[in-house]
């Protein structure tokens, strides 16, 4: 699958204060318009790597290039979806979704119109005036996703977005996510510790080994998702092979 590289990770080392080595010599190319996943056991530095790409953590050594330019901080072409949702508890859904645009100084009317569109897209229409504490975990994460979509970034970085929602919600959300992103031509970089989730969603799975995190394998499941329903995908031979292959590699680390 020939796709242009949109994010390049060049020889990233990350050592935390106190000497914990989170990542060592990580180099990667992430293709445009695809879903790439960082997968690995806890402590493999996958969230750290994602946050380095987001520009939220400065690496000890190495460079991040986005769309052919070196970056050293967050940028408008990248949007982040947080594991713990990171919603303003004192703001309603509409303001939370529009918050990225609010920070960019867009007038209220404009940003609310954009936010409403994305709120409807993630299936939260009529919840605009609700507050985060009134929503379930799955709904809160939809708010987080809508906020990331609202700023119209090319790259969406997701840090274990489904880890705090229940299994049914998770499956439904995954399916909707695939559906949504397929139409938007977004590049998604995704962190998870679920093998099935990685195989189901990703075009490219980057397996990380723990302490310090290094790239162990890259797997491209090559599942044909076009026009097929979720159950067909989950019975696809390539999907099942990918799950097996990943498990064969990961079980050495646990």
């Amino acid at each position, binding site marked *: 699958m020939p796709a242009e590289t949109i994010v390049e990770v060049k020889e990233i080392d990350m050592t935390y204060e106190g000497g914990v080595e989170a990542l060592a010599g990580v180099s990667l190319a992430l293709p445009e318009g695809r879903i790439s996943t960082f997968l690995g056991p806890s402590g493999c530095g996958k969230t750290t790597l994602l*946050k380095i790409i*987001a*520009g*939220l953590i400065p690496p000890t050594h190495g460079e991040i290039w986005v769309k052919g330019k070196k970056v050293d901080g*967050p*940028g*408008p072409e*990248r*949007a*982040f979806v*947080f594991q*713990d*949702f*990171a*919603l*303003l*508890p*004192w703001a309603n859904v509409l303001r939370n979704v529009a*918050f*990225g645009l*609010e*920070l*960019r100084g867009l007038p209220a009317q404009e940003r609310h119109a954009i936010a409403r569109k994305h709120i409807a897209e993630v299936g939260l229409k009529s919840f605009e005036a609700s*507050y*985060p*504490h*009134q929503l379930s975990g799955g709904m809160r994460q939809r708010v987080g996703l809508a*906020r990331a979509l609202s*700023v119209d970034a090319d790259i969406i970085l997701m840090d274990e977005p489904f880890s705090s929602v229940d299994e049914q919600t998770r499956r439904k959300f995954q399916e909707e996510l695939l559906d949504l992103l397929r139409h938007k031509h977004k590049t998604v970089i995704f962190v998870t510790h679920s093998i099935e989730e990685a195989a189901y969603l990703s075009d490219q799975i980057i397996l990380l080994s723990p302490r310090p995190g290094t790239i162990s394998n890259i797997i491209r499941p090559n599942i044909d998702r076009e026009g097929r329903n979720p159950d067909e995908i989950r019975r696809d031979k390539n999907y099942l092979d990918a799950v097996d292959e990943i498990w064969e590699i990961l079980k050495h680390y646990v």
Partner: protein
Amino acid sequence: MERKSAVISPLVWQLISFALFFGLWEIAGRWPISFAFPPFSKTLLALLRMLADGSLPKAYLSTLQPLIIGIVLCSVAGIGFGIGMGLSRAIEWFSLPVFIILQAAPMAAIIPLITYMYGIGLTSKVLAVVVLAAPVIVMNSYKGIRNTNPSLIQMCRAFLGTRRQEMIKIILPHAAALIFAGLRLGLAMGFIGIVIAELLITPTGIGDLITYHSSVADYPEMFAAIASIILFAALTIHALERLEQRLFPPETRGLEDAG
């Protein structure tokens, strides 16, 4: 029916509790133990007399003046300082130990020192209020700022918020509830401070009423003055607490998001 009684009963219980308390006071006051302990009925009558002749309202005017000046000073300087401590490691390092000690120390003990330095005028009384109220106001503001959910700050940065926006849109709203609670606790301390000052420095206002009536053995009046300041402080603090609940409902404070 059940729901209705569930709503009514706390109020009924409260009334019963008050009636019991005042009843026991009445009985205890009629017991010939001490001449200096008047029953509830006489105290209440004395209170009404003092309201009618204007001595109580006048006393409150003079008591509230240093209290309000002191609390306003603390609100401006104390909150500002607490926020500064929360934001700057240097200010925190420099002043956190001082405020931790101040918060734990029995500050009433330094009131005689204040009199020695600043005399017996308004300044001393304002200072007495400030000395008692400031530590809790500063510490609450500081904690409010310092406890900001780090994930929200990261979110703000990820969506290209400036440091200024981070302050105004994340940190301050997040800290507002704790800062307000600090003001309420500060006012409670301020009441203690002003009464101590009025008893210890020079008798003015409510302190004067208490001292004077006790010196001429008007015990019902003395008790009425004491009871009135207790009642006044309790009602004020309670009203602020209600306001706090309304302004910052616990669900929107974001405490549960921290985990």
